[in-house]
């Protein structure tokens, strides 16, 4: 990926990530999050990880955020826009996130691999879909099946709970 494209998409991810928090309008926040995800997907694709990039768009930007929007639109947004900013919460929140950021930086600086330069991408593109599939179904078949059962249990649980309320 040319450096120009990398910086463009990195900036897009960060700017719209910040916009999620700074926007007063929840719909604008949700849409900023979509754009942030799209930037992230583009960064993945720059690393030749097409599968992860596409799944990022398909699952997060295309499905999860549509459901988010669906729920947000049912709320009364004017009340949210009129709400006053709580200074203490802003200062406290910034302090906590700054502390977390510093901690992450310190931990990463301690890591052994963090000072080495990353190896360049192989010149020929690997078929990442096939690689991920083979790895998933050969080496991690049991965990994969267990996750499937867990998701099924969660789905059935949600349906049972919501049906009970209806009755």
């Amino acid at each position, binding site marked *: 990926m*040319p450096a120009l494209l990398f910086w463009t998409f990195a900036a897009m991810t960060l700017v719209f990530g910040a916009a999620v928090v700074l926007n007063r309008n929840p*719909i604008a926040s949700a*849409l900023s999050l*979509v754009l942030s995800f799209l930037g992230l997907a583009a960064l993945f694709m720059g690393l030749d990880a*097409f*599968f992860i990039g*596409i*799944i990022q*768009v*398909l699952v997060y*930007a*295309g*499905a999860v955020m*549509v*459901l988010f*929007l*669906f729920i947000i*639109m*049912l709320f009364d947004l004017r009340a949210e826009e009129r709400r006053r900013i709580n200074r203490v919460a802003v200062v406290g929140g910034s302090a906590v996130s700054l502390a977390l950021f510093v901690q992450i930086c310190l931990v990463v600086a301690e890591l052994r691999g963090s000072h080495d330069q990353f190896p360049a991408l192989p010149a020929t*593109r690997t*078929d*990442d*879909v096939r690689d991920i599939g083979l790895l998933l179904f050969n080496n991690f078949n049991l965990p994969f099946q267990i996750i499937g059962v867990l998701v099924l249990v969660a789905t059935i649980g949600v349906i049972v709970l919501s049906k009970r309320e209806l009755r």
Partner: protein
Amino acid sequence: MNYFIILTSLMKILGVIFLIILPMVSYSVYAERRVSALIQDRLGPNRVGPAGLFQPVADAVKFLLKEDFTPAHVNTFYYWLAPCLAMVPAIATIAVVPFGSTLLGVPMVIADINVGVLYVFAIASLGVYGIVIAGWSSNSKYPFLGGVRSSSQMISYELSLGLAVIPIFLLVGQLRLTEIVRYQIEHGWMIAPFIGDWLNVQKWLLAIPMFVSFCVFTVAIFAETNRLPFDLPEAETELVGGYHTEYGSMKFALFFLGEYAAMITGSALIVTLFLGGWHLPIPSWNGGFHWTYITGDAEGWRGIAGGLFNIATFFGKVAMLLLVFIWVRWTLPRFRYDQLMRLGWVFFFEIALVNIFLAALMIAYFPA
């Protein structure tokens, strides 16, 4: 970076959008009006030019010259953003679809990426934002209802859309759309494997789940493109104009064009996955029956003519499917909203799941 690739890609993008998709969009609107008139025993637009053929030009001029009115009660930024968001994903999906063999040695696909069909689903799933934002930013109740309906409808039918194509990938073992077309050139179309050892019964048995996939996929494409009988987001009898009630002039036209562009890309996908893509084997008798293939590989003008023939074949197939879209629209009544949801979740979802199971069984135990 290779400048040849950049230049040819740019030419392919501009050529596909401005020479093929946009004229096709405007003429499918014309076809819609003429065919609907034919079905309802009317004449339809036949005044502008011979048989009304210049009607799309007149319509475009009308849309551009109308007053571009923004109602006072809308959320202006999002109100302007929505029509663009409706148009862009519909056109962007065509990038991975192979629309021809080769022309002067250049493969006729804009981006041949290994996640092919997943890319299509990902971009198509972004198409719902245009409609949802239009419905929300209009600050009016009927558009809002249209937007809410559309978001739940698209999410429901995306499931059957995604599940319906899995049997194909079980068979081909690739997500790349050019590979799927190549498979169909060697073995015949997915729903009609008449090429190669076509007397093989197992191949035709395998075509049964493919045909079920084809039906589920086509119905899901109808729902994803908001076409009748699934056009609940803009049901005029209940919601005035649905999500675009508050829109006029060119902004309305963009929604309209977006819908037809989505139809074209949807048909292009159906053609690529199930109907053999760009190739058209011609039966010929030359010392025994065989199929003649036309590709763009030959030398000189024959190659160019072959490449153009493949492109024409592809868009000819797409045009046939567009006629089916129009035919269905003017034949079937609209479903009720609860019927639509029941159909999506109770019938098509289950059919697609059982179909995957059947296809997997056949591929595992009766390999063709």
